């Protein structure tokens, strides 16, 4: 098998990402997002098994108020695009293969435990902050929103504060 294509130079990758964000601003008048779409998909999944519960939980029922179809939403389609784009890029670069990214000293099971735990924490955090690194830090950062800059600096602070305690995952 061929060796995978190298990653892009970070500054050029950032420049390209900035152009995508700029296009999003100019064409749609909004930025990019990730956690909002995931939230909708999660509520949709819950809605298929427990529709009454969703209707009785105000924070979730709110998503249905305009349009009862939870998946009929801009950011759901956007994360579908992210998925496609990620797959195509990985495939073209020869990186599309199943695996678990981890350091040499951690078992697959433990790594997956960490992955899901971190995900839960981020799920709560992103709802609390009204967005994640995409919708809040990147999008709001570029349009100079004060809350987004506070959020972005806090993300780095939170990560650095805890990194030492989970270093066994990577080394």
């Amino acid at each position, binding site marked *: 098998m061929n060796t995978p294509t190298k990653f892009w130079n970070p500054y050029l990758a950032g420049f390209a990402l900035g152009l995508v964000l700029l296009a999003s601003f100019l064409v749609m008048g909004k930025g990019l997002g990730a956690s909002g779409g995931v939230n909708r998909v999660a509520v949709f999944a819950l809605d298929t098994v427990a529709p009454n519960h969703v209707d009785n939980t105000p924070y979730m029922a709110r998503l249905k108020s305009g349009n009862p179809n939870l998946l009929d939403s801009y950011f759901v389609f956007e994360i579908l695009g992210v998925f496609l784009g990620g797959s195509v890029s990985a495939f073209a670069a020869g990186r599309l293969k199943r695996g678990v990214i981890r350091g040499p000293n951690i078992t697959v099971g433990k790594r997956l435990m960490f992955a899901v735990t971190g*995900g839960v924490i981020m799920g709560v955090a992103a709802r609390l902050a009204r967005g994640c690194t995409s919708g809040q830090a990147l999008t709001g950062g570029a349009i100079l929103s004060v809350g987004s800059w506070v959020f972005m600096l806090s993300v780095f602070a939170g990560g650095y504060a805890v990194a030492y305690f989970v270093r066994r995952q990577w080394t």
Partner: protein
Amino acid sequence: MTFPFSTLINHSEFSLIAAVVLGFFFGFVLERAGFGRATKLAGQFYLNDMTVFKVMFSAIVTAMLGLVVADGIGLTSFSAIATSAASTTYMWPMLVGGLLLGVGFIVSGYCPGTSLVAASSGNIDGLFTIVGVGIGSLVFGEFYPSLESFYLSGDVGQFYLYQWLNVPQAVVAVGVVLMAIGGFVGAEMVEKMMAQKNHQRPEPSPKTPKRLVFATFAGAATLGLFLLLIPTKTQPIEARSVATLSAETLAKRLLDEPWKLFVLDIRNRADFENKRIAGSQQSDPDNLKNLGLAYRSGTQDLVLITTDNTVPPEVLHYPGNIYTLAGGFSAWQTFALEKPKALSPLATATERAAYAFQSAVYAKMTGTVAAPPPPVATGTFKPPTKRKGGGCDG
């Protein structure tokens, strides 16, 4: 302002296609940057690979400068885009949410967006992170009632760095560019130091793309500043036409969509305190320059209330529509604050309708609606149980 095209945005098929296309490029670029791999992302927090910082800040600077330049040449309005794309700033939940998200980031190795890219390139840990994010957001939904007061705390509205610093966007942008380039140089120094410490060869950082990108930033930032200085931007402002609204239209709009109006009264304070339009704000003409009208989003229509309908130049910098009230405040006085003349029995249907509306406005604006019936006292009183112990007065 040309971009964005509201017809396209409101066209649901177009916007869903645009969502997929924009998402596609978003995912593609993130994957190419190496963000589908947790080890690469985690490197940021152990200082041995600062790719996250470099990519993120290059992207922020690019999009920001793109908007500043597009605003400078009149293609779009930075403030209007900011208003439509940014969320309101709630200081405390954003601070705490950020800290928590940082913790989740280093624990899972991904942020929500990059976990999608990781999963799409076959990494099962990314898929587990997405599932986690889904569960976490459901958990938030479950506990929302008890989190609500914190979720809504520190509300300062939509708030931007350029409002806080009270300078034009292009100036803040130049500051951000300088900070970012300083950060990039610092990040590369840190990477070199860490590589030496770990007895590894540092990842090479080729000079050509770096020079290219930094030079583009410097060029765009300079252009942004330059566009701020050249008079083309102020010329149309001098020539702006200011439309007039009749008192009747203003009354209708105040009742139907008050949130779309920004009624600014520049009569003197005493007159304003005596009689005014409900919901209006007063400013003396000398104070107008301190209101930062040029930096407002312009999504509301500004209605200027004066005695003689002369429009001070500061007001002309307001980016949205500007109106004056036909006939000035006295027209409002006659229309809404004085009881309409009794209707002649021979009045036509149109006159009757106009009379009915004017009476309604009069009643609404002067508060001459009949008072509601006095409420009946209800409720049961339980004497509070005396707390035992605790407290300073023990």
